[in-house]
């Protein structure tokens, strides 16, 4: 199974387990393309991933 290639993180590693709780940060060095990835675990155990563009050059989005 899983024949598609996994996106290689440019640093850090997506194999690391998510950590943090609610608003806590985790794995701040994971990237995909121009985005940084922050993994969190919600209070009920569900995963939450936040993606942010690395260059905050005023694209008009929060």
């Amino acid at each position: 199974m899983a024949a598609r290639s996994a996106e290689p993180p440019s640093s850090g590693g997506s194999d690391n387990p998510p950590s943090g709780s609610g608003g806590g940060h985790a794995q701040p060095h994971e990237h995909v393309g121009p985005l940084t990835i922050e993994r969190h675990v919600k209070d009920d155990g569900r995963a939450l991933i936040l993606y942010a563009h690395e260059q905050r050059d005023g694209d008009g989005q929060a």
Partner: protein
Amino acid sequence: MSELRFNELRGEEVVYAIHRQERTFLPDREHCPLCPTHPGGPTTEIPFPAFEIAVFENRFPAFQAPNGAAEVVVYTDRHNDSFSTLAPQRAEDLMWVWRHRYAELGAREDIEYVFIFENRGVEVGVTLHHPHGQIYGFPFLPPIPALELVADERLGGCAPCTLLRRELTDGERIVYQNDSVVVFVPRAARWAYEAHVVMREHRPSLCDCEAEELAGLAGALQSLARGYDALFDRQFPYVMAVHQAPTSGGPGGAAAAARGHLHVEFYPPLRTAEKLKYLAGSEQGAGTFISDTLPEESAAKLREAIARAA
């Protein structure tokens, strides 16, 4: 936990996710679970005061580990935006998020097909207005992607490549194109304003695309979405379905996983500004769509609307 039952007469799986009956239904803006969490306000699904793009496991999943996955992709923290009104950079970023989720979910042993989609509008069953899409990690290869593999066999190669060549030769149904992507109303569209957004080059998945191709895809999707809104001068409901290669292949195994051609299909239910196309006797009972609109005529109107919205 959902239950799968195989429908022998249809030759397909049916998913029973009875817990979804209780999911949040069209809350007012003050109680939107996809908005950011503001100080002093209720905690939403995203416990931060601002965010760009957020992905989380669905609270009411159709699939969940160890038998698949169901995720929600929130495009922005702005409640009143839509995919069509996102800044171009945000839309491009969304392509990278889709790519990341496809790669990560597709690497799981329990997922055979990663299906990224958006339902827009109450006409297609939206229960939350905040701009968002969903991802299902199917623990089996669903019928429509499976049929696309059958089409490959029937056409003697990649079916989307063949159909794209035909559309480019004909030209009459093309509504938009850029260096990476061609958008057309397919010759045998089921829906009046159905459109397919197809990569020019053979790319099985988002993971096979160059960065500029992802930018081209985002631009084409937004151009089409804005054209839809301009078509009848109203928010245009649609189902947007991202089709990519199976991640474990299902029938055909690894060979099938090497196939597939990234394209995005839009199924809008409107046939006029006020009239919906319903799936009735022939569509549901016989499986044959009856359309009262010719794709060539729809394409002309949609092409004009896209140009007008540009």
